């Protein structure tokens, strides 16, 4: 008797219960970890400047509650609360802001602190896009997690189309040997696996160090002279010429120097894996066109 009654009560509850919680939102991140949220994220922490930009691009800008140093784009991000540097997070400040999703930089954030946050049960989504398609995918993923699919998918598509257009435009362009200088001392560049390297390729450039095994190789001036690029490009504040390429000017035998192909592009759009790569690509392509004219 009692058993039947219990069963009836249970059935009753099942019928009366609200139409269950929506299925959890699950996305696999760049560490191949599946991150599941019961509902779209409302309080997002972004632990790198790139992640901040991507969150805004995904349409989730108004849900970001914590950022790290140098999160300077878009402008609205400047007003958000800081929780330290991407290499050293103020964990207490982060926790106090009660995030329900933390976007981390796969290789840039300190592993020990990330482990600690994971142990505290915070949902952590690690990103590190390495290709243009990767950038689009991340925007889509973030918008899924934030419930802003409409904006996010649209932005991802806009980016895809933009890149495809440039690729089409420069498909048969004359290849230009390029040296991209990431840093002066020590002298650092990138290989073809790096997003910057892919931008160079997109514009029909040939990265003279594209085949190097390391993502960000440290090289000597000698090998640059030996490679004799036709264009040398570096990033600077807002693309304004500064002294970072002065050291090459004395090597008048270098093709790039002889033809005055020392170019500056705005540093932040090209260095971050965000939709601004589109503008950055256009900048680089324009410079390479100039180099082509001077051949």
């Amino acid at each position: 008797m009692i058993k039947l009654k219990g069963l009836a009560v249970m059935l009753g509850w099942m019928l009366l219960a609200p139409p269950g919680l929506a299925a959890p939102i699950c996305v696999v991140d760049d560490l191949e970890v599946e991150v599941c949220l019961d509902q779209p994220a409302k309080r997002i922490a972004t632990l790198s400047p790139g992640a901040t930009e991507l969150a805004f691009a995904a349409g989730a800008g108004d849900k970001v509650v914590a950022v790290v140093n140098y999160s300077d784009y878009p402008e609205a991000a400047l007003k958000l609360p800081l929780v330290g540097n991407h290499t050293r997070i103020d964990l207490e400040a982060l926790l106090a802001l009660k995030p329900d999703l933390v976007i981390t930089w796969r290789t840039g954030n300190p592993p020990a602190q990330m482990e600690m946050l994971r142990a505290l049960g915070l949902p952590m989504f690690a990103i590190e896009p390495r290709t243009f398609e990767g950038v689009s995918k991340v925007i889509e993923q973030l918008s899924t997690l934030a419930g802003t699919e409409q904006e996010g998918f649209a932005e991802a598509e806009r980016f895809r189309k933009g890149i495809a257009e440039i690729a089409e435009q420069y498909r048969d362009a004359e290849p230009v040997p390029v040296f991209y200088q990431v840093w002066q001392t020590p002298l650092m560049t990138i290989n073809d696996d790096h997003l910057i390297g892919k931008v160079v390729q997109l514009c029909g450039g040939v990265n003279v160090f594209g085949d190097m095994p390391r993502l960000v190789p440290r090289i000597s001036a000698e090998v640059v002279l030996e490679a004799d690029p036709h264009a040398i490009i570096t990033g600077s504040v807002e693309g304004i010429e500064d002294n970072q390429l002065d050291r090459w000017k004395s090597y008048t035998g270098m093709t790039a120097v002889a033809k005055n192909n020392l170019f500056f592009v705005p540093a932040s759009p090209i260095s971050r894996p965000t939709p601004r790569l589109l503008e950055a690509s256009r900048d680089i392509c324009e410079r390479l066109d100039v180099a082509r004219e001077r051949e």
Partner: protein
Amino acid sequence: MTRSLLVLGAISLAALILALAIGSVNIAPSELWKVIQGEGSALHRTLLLDLRLPRTLAAFATGGLLAVAGALMQVLLRNPLADPYVLGLSGGAAVGALLAMLAGMGALLISGFAFAGAMLAMVLVFGLAHGTGSWTASRLLLTGVVVAAGWGAVITLMLAITPSYKLPGMLYWLMGDVSYARTPWPALVVLVLAILVILPLARNMNVLARGPMQAAALGVSVRPLEWTIYVLASLLTATAVTTAGSIGFVGLIVPHMLRLVLGNDQRIILPASALAGGTLLVLADTLARTVIAPEQLPVGVITALLGVPTFLYLLHRSR
């Protein structure tokens, strides 16, 4: 005698409570009390029990370990300027840790490698110093200094070849960072056990400080005692460096300051070093995580900034 230890104990406790209350989110003592009793808000509970308490205890243990190791080194080498790193222990630990970081290993393995590196350094210096015959304090010191320089070269090499994104992590380890400590318990246990082992030897150390010949003439088994001190100091340093990277100044300045104030009786200096070193590091770490929050400073910077003027003041006063 015991009065100074009680005073130090009280100061330590006050420092611990201060450290638990202050942070990016300040927790009033009444809130602290609530959390201890099992209530309090979820945020406070997480902050206090999962973040601040382990970190503060780790800072205390590390500071205590370094200060006691420093005091022991100063007795062993009969040199008031010796510190726990002078024989290359932190260099060995650093090479171990950086190798693990280079290979992309997790935090547990990094600690393991750091400890192994320190033990290797201990055996290496001992073996080299023992080399040809007599084992004197100055021979040990010279060997240690040279080996430490060697480790330094290896560290520089590793920093030069490591991919850029791994650099910040390595540098922070080298500067010393209590936030790395995943659990304070190994360090605390080692500290307490060490003090228990050392206290009966403390008077022997007083005699040893008069010189090895004098000590032997007064009934001290000099060689076994020197070995014991060497091994103990190495273990303490290795544990400290494994827990929080190579934090400087504490091991040199704390025993020295205490000697200026309390005299040279190791029976007081050793336990006092544990308490004072722990307190110093707890206070330094509190400052390191709050003074320019949310920016986080390396605690080694703060120990220097706090320790040096205090030491100079005490030196001036003791004239």
